[in-house]
Structures are given as structure tokens and as C-alpha cells.
């Protein structure tokens, strides 16, 4: 099977070509079969590769097909690298990808652009697989740009008007800034090592000393690329806007796979990052701050998808902290569990939106557990997984990152713990607002409410199982388990001698687990009281008023206290981050730079006066300047 690895990206590409060329001519059923079938075949091959790799014992295999580009002494091969890192990523991409493809068959069924949608999705799968399989930075970059392109195409899938431009422009500019960093890093790699091949770069980087300035620069540039793609401060605001796309897209691209490309890239370059401690520190701090900030913002969002989007940003922050702490296998572990539960959350949200005929405002939902039983159960598991309740997947992966943070720096540990609490808060708020209480939507919606078709619920159930048991791959020793995943990754990260150990006492781990469980239960009670109401006002003001009256009537002074010391400051922080930092500082900077360029543009435009006399004058000035400076130069020399 390993010899067939070239088919893994090729099959979705063929699917894209058939669906793309035949759009409008192929029936919906055929398009769905081609779209899902190509991914399914890829998954089978990937599974075969996984199995063979287990037999082989994890040795990396590099398949070189042809010399792609030659320019002087620089040659870039078209080659694929199969090691355990790429295998895990392939499994996630094709596995979760297949489920989401199947889900899309139901979700997009009434859409006129059905075939086009599958064509784009297949193109995305192709690019993502090139990204994870490429054996050098150039192929990685090509996949990187490819997934970006598909992301824009799919964000704008439903938008044929002006609304689209603002969101797409923002995503566009931020990703360009990131790509700029990536490209500069790429060129610097060429200049330093004379090659972009992973294995050769990593073997020659060993001769550099720790903290070498070139390596620090390269890693920093690459991290800027990761900031753009994986939505970290300050380039994170495009991700919530990207929710304009269809929900399966949000699940596949903006939660499970594409946004983790930055994490994959850093994990791939782990040898370089471990050699650059200052960059690693920076990565960890940026990750931690992003996690905290996005967690705060998620607290007050009312759009069901926006909550999940900010939650994604926050979870990505976690992964970056792990990378910064050189806990690479923990980061990959979280990538995996996150792919399961976040894909599930998005698909569940999609199922809710589907059931409510396109409603996304959580204030107009409520009580859906009766109407959407399967969605409710799966979402419950997903919520427990993301908040880190044992024994679901998120518990183990988050626990690993938290202990790594604790062993390294108290500061990071405190921030991450705080973020965990926020995660529990906004996730339960989301959960109760959607599924509990009474339905607050329109009559039309309640009449048309329905559980989603099988093609949608089946992926939900499979992902639910994965979210529930996925953590079993990394049971900490403290619980007497065996860490399969970190052993599995030993072949990838084991060669890196600079990885710090993250050993903490078992006592601390027990303490952490117990405290987090207790906290989750407490917050569950708190949010239940707060959001599991029969009536929740429709606007923010009404909500506050009604609660206020209710609470004072019932003499719930405890609640009042809660409100004063917890809820109000939290909401305040949330609004502060959302309104001041995100809207004013970051969007302002993006728009501001755009305006500056536009201003420059009009200045330069007015220079083009249309007058030959002026043009000739400028030419003569140019000539005189060139002669003057060149000749002056020779004299002083």
C-alpha cells in the first residue's frame, strides 16, 4: 500500500476534475458518489499505509517521483514523505474528511451548487493531502496555498453579493501577511541549507548551536505563516468571519483540518524549533494569550457558529502552547481529539441550523433536546469532550498540555487553567441555550423542525464514538495507562534531543484531575441555573432585566453575588476583547493599512497627469539622478 501513496492525493484530484468539469451535467447522486468515493478510496489506502507502517516499526519512507524544479544548484523533487506524523495527519484528514463529505450529501441536498460544492471539497482534500505528504517545504507551501484558495472559494460559496467581499477581504489580507512570513522563511531556508527537503534540512540543522540567529529567524518567519493559517493573535479575526460558508466547510476546513496546518508545520519542523528557544517561548506566549482572549470572546457570542469559531481559535492556542513547550506529541494528540470533537460540534450545529431552517441565533433556539434526540446526545458527548470531562477525549489531551505547562512555567499554567474554566462556561452556555429551556423561535420553525436525515446523523454518531474513546490513545501513567500515541510518535520526535521532559508528580496530576472535575460540575450547575430557563429574553437588555427581577423576587442573593463578581466582569472582559481589541485594534490595523495603501495609490495616480511635458520632465529628473548618484559614487570610492 505504501507504494500507492501517490494515489492518496490523486484520487480527490480526479474527483475534483470529474465533478468540476461535469458540473451541471452530472446528477446529484453521481456527484456525491464521486465526491465521497474518491475520499473513501484514499482512506482505504491510508489505512493500508498505517498498517504497513506498524509492521515496519515506524521507519520513515520517502518516495521521490521526479525532479520537479531545477534552478542552478537548487533542485526540488516531487516527493512524498511517509512517516508517523504524516500518517496521523492523513488519517485525520481522510477519516474526518470522509465523514464530513457524507454529512454534506444530506446537508447540501437542496443546494443548486451541489456538484460544485463537492468539486471544491475534493480540491481541498487534494491540497490538504499534498500539504501533509509533501517531503519538502515547497510542496508544503503549495498545499498551504491550495487549502487557502479552497477556503476562500468555500467561504464565498453562498455569497454572491457584497457581504462576501468584506469577510473574504479580511481573510485574504490576514492570510497574505501569514504567507509573506512563510515565503520569507522558505527563502531563508534555501539560502541557509541550499535545499528545502525536510530530511536534509533537519540533518544539516543539527550542526547549528541552540539559539542560532538564522534558525531563530527562520522559525519566526514560519511561525508568522502559522499565525495566519491557524488564526493566532493578531491574525485570528478572519476565522469567525469565515463562518459565512456552509457548515460542513466550517467543520472540515475551519475546525478539523486546515487551521491545524500551522501546528502540523511546526511539529514537522520540531528540530528547528527546539533549536530556537526564544521562538518557542514566543509561540507558547502567543498561543496562551490567543487561547485566553478567544475564550473570553466566545462567552457572549449569540451566533451558534461564532461561539464554535472562537472556541476553535482558543483550542488552537492550546496546541501552540504545547508546541512552544516542545511537547510536540501532546500538540498532535490535541489536534486529533480536537478534530473529532470540534468536527462533531460543528456538524451538530449544522444539524440544528438545518432543523431550524437556517436559524443561527442561539437566543432563538432552546428546548431542542426533545426534537433532535440524536443531535442532542452527540452534542452532549462533544461538549463533555471539549470541556475535558473524564473519560472523554478532551480530558486526556488537555490534561497533557496543562501538565506540560505546569512543569515549564506557572504563568502559562495559570492562563491555560483560566481558559479551561472559560471553555467550560461558554460550552455549557451554548449547550443549555440550544437544547434546554423552551423553544424561543418562530411558529414556522417549530412546525418544520425535524431530525436530520441518516446521511447526517451517521457521521455524527461515528464522531461521537471517536470523541468519547479517542482519548484512550493517551492515558497518562498516573492513571496506570499507557501512552500509545507518544510511543507511536517516538519515531518522529524521538530523534529530537532538545525536547524537554514534562514530568510532574502523580500527586499533582491527581489533584489537577479532581479540581477540574469539580470545577466542571460546579460550572454545570451555575450555567444550568442561568440558562436552563423557560423564558430567556430576546435581546441582551431584556435578558439582564428579566433575570434581575426574577432573582431579586426570589431573593436569590447568591445569584446576585454571582452576577456581580463573576458574570458582569466576565461579560465585561468579553465585550472589551471583542469590541476594543478585535474590532478596533486588529481590524483597525488591517483596514488602516488598506487605507494607507489606497491613499498612496491616489497620490501616485495624480502623478500620472496625462501631460507629456511632465512625463518628460520626470524622465529627465530620473536620468540626472541616476547619472549623478552613480558618478558621485565612483568619485567617493
Amino acid at each position, binding site marked *: 500500500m505504501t507504494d500507492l501513496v501517490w494515489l492518496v492525493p490523486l484520487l480527490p484530484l480526479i474527483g475534483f476534475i470529474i465533478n468540476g468539469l461535469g458540473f451541471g451535467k452530472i446528477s446529484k447522486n453521481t456527484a456525491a458518489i464521486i465526491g465521497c468515493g474518491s475520499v473513501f478510496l484514499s482512506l482505504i489506502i491510508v489505512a493500508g499505509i498505517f498498517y504497513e507502517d506498524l509492521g515496519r516499526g515506524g521507519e520513515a519512507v520517502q518516495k521521490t517521483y521526479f525532479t520537479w524544479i531545477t534552478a542552478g544548484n537548487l533542485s526540488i523533487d516531487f516527493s512524498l514523505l511517509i512517516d508517523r506524523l504524516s500518517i496521523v495527519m492523513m488519517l485525520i484528514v481522510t477519516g474526518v474528511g470522509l465523514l464530513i463529505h457524507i454529512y454534506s450529501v444530506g446537508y447540501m441536498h437542496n443546494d443548486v451548487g451541489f456538484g460544485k460544492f463537492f468539486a471544491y471539497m475534493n480540491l481541498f482534500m487534494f491540497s490538504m493531502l499534498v500539504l501533509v505528504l509533501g517531503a519538502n517545504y515547497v510542496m508544503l507551501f503549495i498545499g498551504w496555498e491550495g487549502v487557502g484558495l479552497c477556503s476562500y472559494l468555500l467561504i464565498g460559496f453562498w455569497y454572491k453579493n457584497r457581504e462576501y467581499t468584506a469577510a473574504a477581504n479580511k481573510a485574504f489580507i490576514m492570510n497574505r501577511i501569514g504567507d509573506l512570513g512563510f515565503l520569507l522563511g522558505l527563502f531563508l531556508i534555501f539560502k541557509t541549507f541550499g535545499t528545502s527537503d525536510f530530511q536534509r534540512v533537519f540533518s544539516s540543522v543539527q550542526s547549528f548551536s541552540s539559539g542560532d540567529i538564522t534558525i531563530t529567524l527562520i522559525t519566526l518567519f514560519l511561525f508568522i505563516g502559522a499565525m495566519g493559517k491557524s488564526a493566532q493573535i493578531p491574525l485570528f479575526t478572519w476565522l469567525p468571519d469565515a463562518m459565512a460558508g456552509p457548515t460542513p466547510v466550517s467543520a472540515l476546513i475551519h475546525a478539523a483540518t486546515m487551521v491545524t496546518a500551522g501546528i502540523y508545520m511546526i511539529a514537522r519542523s520540531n528540530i528547528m524549533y527546539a533549536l530556537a528557544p526564544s521562538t518557542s517561548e514566543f509561540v507558547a506566549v502567543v498561543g496562551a494569550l490567543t487561547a485566553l482572549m478567544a475564550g473570553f470572546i466566545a462567552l457572549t457570542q449569540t451566533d451558534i457558529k461564532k461561539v464554535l469559531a472562537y472556541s476553535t481559535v482558543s483550542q488552537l492556542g492550546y496546541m501552540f502552547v504545547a508546541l512552544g513547550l516542545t511537547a510536540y506529541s501532546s500538540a498532535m494528540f490535541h489536534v486529533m481529539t480536537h478534530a473529532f470533537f470540534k468536527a462533531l460540534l460543528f456538524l451538530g450545529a449544522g444539524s440544528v441550523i438545518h432543523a431550524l431552517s437556517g436559524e443561527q441565533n442561539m437566543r432563538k433556539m432552546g428546548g431542542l433536546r426533545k426534537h433532535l434526540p440524536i443531535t442532542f446526545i452527540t452534542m452532549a458527548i462533544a461538549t463533555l469532550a471539549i470541556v475535558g470531562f473524564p473519560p472523554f477525549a478532551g480530558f486526556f489531551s488537555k490534561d497533557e498540555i496543562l501538565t506540560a505547562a505546569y512543569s515549564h512555567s506557572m504563568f502559562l499554567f495559570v492562563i491555560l487553567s483560566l481558559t479551561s474554566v472559560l471553555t467550560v462556561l461558554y460550552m455549557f452556555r451554548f449547550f443549555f441555550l440550544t437544547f434546554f429551556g423552551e423553544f424561543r423561535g418562530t411558529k414556522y420553525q417549530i412546525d418544520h423542525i425535524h431530525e436530520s436525515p441518516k446521511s447526517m446523523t451517521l457521521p455524527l454518531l461515528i464522531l461521537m464514538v471517536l470523541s468519547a474513546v479517542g482519548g484512550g490513545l493517551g492515558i497518562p501513567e498516573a492513571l496506570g495507562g499507557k501512552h500509545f500515541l507518544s510511543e507511536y510518535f517516538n519515531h518522529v520526535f524521538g530523534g529530537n534531543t532538545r525536547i524537554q521532559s514534562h514530568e510532574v508528580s502523580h500527586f499533582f496530576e491527581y489533584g489537577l484531575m479532581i479540581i477540574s472535575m469539580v470545577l466542571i460540575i460546579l460550572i454545570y450547575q451555575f450555567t444550568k441555573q442561568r440558562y436552563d430557563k423557560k423564558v430567556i429574553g430576546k435581546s441582551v437588555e431584556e435578558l439582564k432585566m428579566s433575570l434581575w427581577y426574577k432573582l431579586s423576587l426570589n431573593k436569590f442573593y447568591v445569584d446576585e453575588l454571582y452576577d456581580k463578581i463573576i458574570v458582569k466582569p466576565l461579560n465585561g472582559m468579553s465585550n472589551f476583547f471583542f469590541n476594543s481589541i478585535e474590532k478596533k485594534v486588529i481590524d483597525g490595523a488591517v483596514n488602516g493599512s488598506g487605507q494607507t495603501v489606497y491613499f498612496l*495609490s491616489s497620490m*501616485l495616480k495624480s502623478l500620472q497627469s496625462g501631460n507629456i511635458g511632465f512625463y518628460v520632465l520626470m524622465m529627465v529628473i530620473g536620468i540626472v539622478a541616476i547619472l549623478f548618484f552613480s558618478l558621485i559614487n565612483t568619485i567617493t570610492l
Partner: protein
Amino acid sequence: MNVVIALTITGILNLFGSIFSYRKITPLLSIIGLTTAIVFNSMYWNTNQSFFNHMMVVDNYAVAFGTVCMVLAACLIIFYNRFMGDNDHHLPEVLSVIVLSVDGAIVMVSYTNLLMLFLGVEILSISFYILAGLKKKDLGSNEAAIKYFLMGAFSTGFLLLGITLIYGATASFDLSVISEYVKLNSTSTNYLLLSGVLLILVGLLFKVAAAPFHFWTPDVYQGAPTIITAFFATVGKIASFGAFYRLFQMCFSPIVNEWSGVIMVVAIITMFIGNITALQQKNLKRMFAYSSIAHAGYMLLALLSHDYLGGNAILFYSIAYGISSMSAFIIIHIIQTQTGTDEAMGFAGLVHKNKTLAMITAISMLSLSGIPLTAGFFGKFYLFSSAIESGYVLLVCLAVINSFIGIYYYFKPVIESYFKDSITDDVIKLKSVETILLIFLSIATILLGIFPGLVPAI
């Protein structure tokens, strides 16, 4: 030299088209002539022959650039025929001028004597002055012609003065003698030589439309008939760069330090002016004029590379840029004849009018903006890596920033054609040969983006 002879005969035969009333077949005649010339040209591959008493040499460099120019000219003639064909009373003469100007381009990429450089530049430029003013009653076309003519003649003066000064210093127009002289005297500063080099540089910078000698470009590109603009932007620019690189790499590389600073500064200014001004253009021809200025800025980077890498890079870039610009201008032309506007809004709803055209628009824009898996990406990649190899890291950083600015405006027509609603619902119909040609150009763009090795090293 069969290529030049074939082209000249074709040009002259075309001229008689009106007199002996075979004007209807002149487009066919031109295509046949160009095809013959391309075949002759490719037969010179790897022969390295010298012609006309060492006035010209046909090395691989000349063959490659010559072929690119002729293929692009052939594409152009196919489309010229469609849009001007029936109402144009001067069809044979115009075709003759186009074919003969390709002659100039051939001379420009294969000269080994400054006299031939001058002749090549003038053959090309004088033809261009005529072509810019083709629409005699159209004020825009008039203005374009006079602007191009006056400024072109003015810049020729500088080019000639430069050649003369070099002659004064070296006593020869022959490139090999000059390069020997430069090599021997590279340590001490020779003011006569240096001034000559700088003035030739100015003359050529004007031809490739680099700032601050770019002012003619937007006005001329906008005013000239669109199909002719395509010719200026592709063949004109590629031939000029062919001449530019040949001269500076063959002769003046020993004193690179004397002129590299100028090229660097000019390249930076050119890239920024081109890209930033293009942002606010509503007229697409004007926007592409600025974009072509920006591309000239990128291509200047190749001149700075120390070895043969630069030649390969500039060739690949020329091909990528030539193909994509050609299809872009042709599409603008098609839309202009259909909707009567050459502004971006003319593209609105193109996808509903003609899916193929919309797709080709998207592909050529992606290539021009340098997105991976298109030829434009590898064009930029080669250029930038050749400059990096020569140690111009900062310059490449600026170039990369610029290419990202560029993406913004290249997407305008794509967004218009896919996401806006059209004013009219007329379907745009193309002849099958035209569709095939455009699809061929797009396939070439993609193919070169996946297998850049298809372009042979020179």
C-alpha cells in the same frame, strides 16, 4: 538567417494584399509565415550559429525568446482577424506592420552588435508607434500614438548617446570586443564607459517601462486598441527584456557594482508604483498597464543575478507572463466588443455568459498574481530564488510584499465574473478556433505551473 528572411517576406507579401486583392487571405498568410519562421527558429536550437558578419548570433537564448515572441504574435493575429477583420480597410498593412515588428523583436534578442540592438529597438518601436494610432478617428488612440512617439523618440536619443559613448571608450560596437574591454578595465573607473552604460540603461529602462520612465505606459496601453495593447504588453516587453538581459549579462557583468544599485532602486520604485497605483484603477486596460509595470520591476531582479540562473528565470517569467497577459488582454478585448466597456464591471456575471471565458480569466489572473500551480508562481519563484542566490534578500522581501499587493487587484475581474450579476444576459459566442486557442493558453499556464521543467534550460 532564415527566420528574419521568412518574416520579412511575409511582411512584404502582406503589403501587396490590397493591391493584388488577396486581402482576405492575409491573416492566413501571416500565420503561415510565422509558423514557418517558428519552425526555422527551432531548427537553430543548440547550433549557436553566427550570422551577418557576427552582427547576430542564434544561440539557445535567442531561439527561446524568439519563439516566445513569434508564438504570441501568432495568437494575436488570430484574434486581430476576428475583431478588426471585416470593418478594417487596412488589414493587410496592419498585419504587415505586426509581422515586421516581430522581425525587430527577433533582432533584439539575437544581436551581437550594438548597431543591431539599435536597429532592432527601432524596428519594433516605429511599428509600435503606427499600431498605437491605428484608430485614426479615435482621440484616445491619437493621444496614445503621439505620447508613445514623442517619448519613445526622446528615449532613443539617450540610447544612442549611450551607444556612442561606449563606442568612444571601446572603439567597437561588437559585444565581444566591448566585453573584453570591460573585463580588462573593470578595476579602474572609466567615465566615458560608465556614462555610456548608464545611458543605455536609461534607454532600455524606458522600453521595459520601469519607473521613473514608465509614464507613457498607462496612457499608451489605455489609448491603443486593446488587441494592440496585448501586443505591446507581451511581445514588446519580452523582446525588450531579452535585449536588456543579453547586453548587461554579456558585456557589463564585470562592472556590475557600478549599475546594480541603479537597478535595485529602480526595481523597488517600479514594483511599488506599479502595484499601488493599479489598486485604484477602474479601467482594466489601465490596471493591466500598471500591472505590467510591476512585472517589469520583478523581472529587473533577474538582471542582478551573477550567473546563468538569471537568464533561465527571465525566460520562464517571460513565458508565464506573456501567456497570461495575452489571454487577459484578449478577454478584455472580447468583453469590450461585447459590452462596449473596458472597465472591470464589464466582467460582471461573465460566468453566466460564457463559462469557458470566466474560467480562463480566473486562471490567467491566478497566474499573473503568482498563485502556486500556475506558471506565474514558478516564474516568480525562479526570479526570486535567482536574486536570493546573488544575495539580494531585502529586495526579494519587498518583491514578495508587492506580489501580495498585486493579488488584490488581480482578483477584481475574477470576483466580478463569478460573484456579480450581469447587466445583460447576452451569451458571448466565440469561434471554435478562438476557444481552442484560449484553452490552449490556459492549459499551458497550468502545465507549466505543475511541470516547470518543460521549459528547457538555456
